[in-house]
């Protein structure tokens, strides 16, 4: 059967990515661990993304509040603003915005870095120097992204709430303690835990897609550029798909 080229390409790519992921689970956790490189990548991937994620989260918190305020006033429920904003940030907007920013920064940098290492044979050079490049380069980056994004998102949520508090205060005056007690009062286990769990999957998706695209980069500068570019696109789309699945699963489990 002849499938159109684009569909065949998509299916092949998906299959390759699945195989690559399988390879990660087969090899990523075998000894010896590349602890030094893992810590270095946690620093590169986590710490260095903090500023960007913090800035965008702050702005989103602030803007969301300012946008919602007039409508809530119109319906006479302005006092519910902290609750609404808090729920929106913790459950959806905080994690997704932070993950998308993270994908833009990290998936592209992993894709470009591994891509250029691939085309300049640095990965082959590691291979002949007694190093498993998959473990040294891929496993460490994927694990670092999986572990760092949840931490970033917890901090991003807090900063977004701070932005929301400032947004509330532009309109009227609420004390910081009152604002946060209103927010946390309305939050339940089922709001926080599923939202937190999905962030690990976001981080994993960013790490694995960046590595995969870098690893199969074609020769030449366009190859590296394409690797970085398609890594960001695919990682971002996957974040939305994971988000959608996460909602379905939490609903199925009755956490709503």
């Amino acid at each position, binding site marked *: 059967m002849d499938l159109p080229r684009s569909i065949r390409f998509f299916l092949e790519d998906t299959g390759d990515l699945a195989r690559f992921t399988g390879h990660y689970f087969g090899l990523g956790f075998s000894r010896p661990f590349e602890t030094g490189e893992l810590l270095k990548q946690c620093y590169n991937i986590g710490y260095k993304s903090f500023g960007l994620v913090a800035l965008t989260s702050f702005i989103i918190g602030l803007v969301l509040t300012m946008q919602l305020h007039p409508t809530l006033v119109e319906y006479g429920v302005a006092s519910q603003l902290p609750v609404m904003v808090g729920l929106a940030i913790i459950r959806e907007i905080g994690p997704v915005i932070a993950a998308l920013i993270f994908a833009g920064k990290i998936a592209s940098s992993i894709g470009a870095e591994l891509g*250029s290492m691939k085309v*300049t044979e*640095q990965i082959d*050079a590691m291979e*002949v*120097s*007694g*190093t498993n490049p998959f473990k040294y380069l891929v496993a460490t980056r994927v694990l670092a992204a999986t572990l760092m994004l949840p931490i970033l998102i917890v901090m991003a949520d807090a900063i977004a709430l701070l932005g929301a508090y400032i947004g509330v205060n532009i309109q009227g005056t609420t004390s910081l303690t009152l604002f946060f007690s209103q927010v946390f009062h309305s939050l339940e286990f089922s709001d926080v835990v599923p939202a937190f769990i999905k962030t690990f999957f976001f981080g994993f998706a960013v790490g694995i897609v960046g590595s995969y695209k870098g690893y199969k980069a074609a020769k030449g500068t366009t190859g590296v550029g394409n690797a970085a570019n398609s890594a960001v696109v695919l990682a971002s789309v996957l974040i939305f798909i994971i988000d959608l699945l996460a909602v379905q699963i939490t609903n199925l489990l009755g956490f709503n």
Partner: protein
Amino acid sequence: METKKETITTIPEKQETAIVIEHLYKQFGTNKVLDDFNLTVYKEENVVVLGKSGSGKSVLIKCIIGLLQPDKGNIIISGKSINGLSHNELDKMRSKIGFLFQGNAIYDSMTVRENLEFPLRRRWIKMSQEQINAMVIEALENVNLAHTVDMMPAELSGGMLKRIALARTMILKPDIILYDEPTSGLDPVTAREIDKLILDLQKKYHTTSIIISHDMNCVKKTADRVVLLLDGKCYAQGTYNEFEIADDPNIKQFFE
């Protein structure tokens, strides 16, 4: 063409073999790169492989180190076939082989020092920092680049990178070294120093080498035996002098 028989006149007396390549086949798609290639390299011998661009020289030595898998044929290194070796066994064998990549494959995210330390740290776990430092400096002094030890690769010229790559290849004093164009891109003075270095290593550490080169001065100085790779086969072999006076047009064109 009967050249093959005419030119094989002086196979060295030395009996012990370092690398035996038997009936090697490798093709990419429909592109037959190696097509029944045979070659025996004896211990402490320098064999230069000549061949036009794209004739499969790099593919040949990548098969020897196991970066590429031949389709058919056998490669025996120090009496041991590399077919079907486990990953650990292959790694062990590779620790005795140095490989100079045609494009240098210097790790561009690491300093020169870290580049040279990489194979050391990966191979020998038990070494003090002083020993490592001493080996790094010695290797860099061999290529007259001791002053670059704390520089990043981006700060170095192409010829300097080639010499750093040579230093990294030689740092473990391997039994066998595979050089992919060791003098390309170097000025004649430095190129002659590299020739000398190759010969010094051969004498001092009894290294066996396969050298890919188009630089006839380098070939003349370093080759104990010259091999011409043509149409995927070992078309002719002999000493440099035999090649120089050969009538075969396929050989002659390299000396014009």
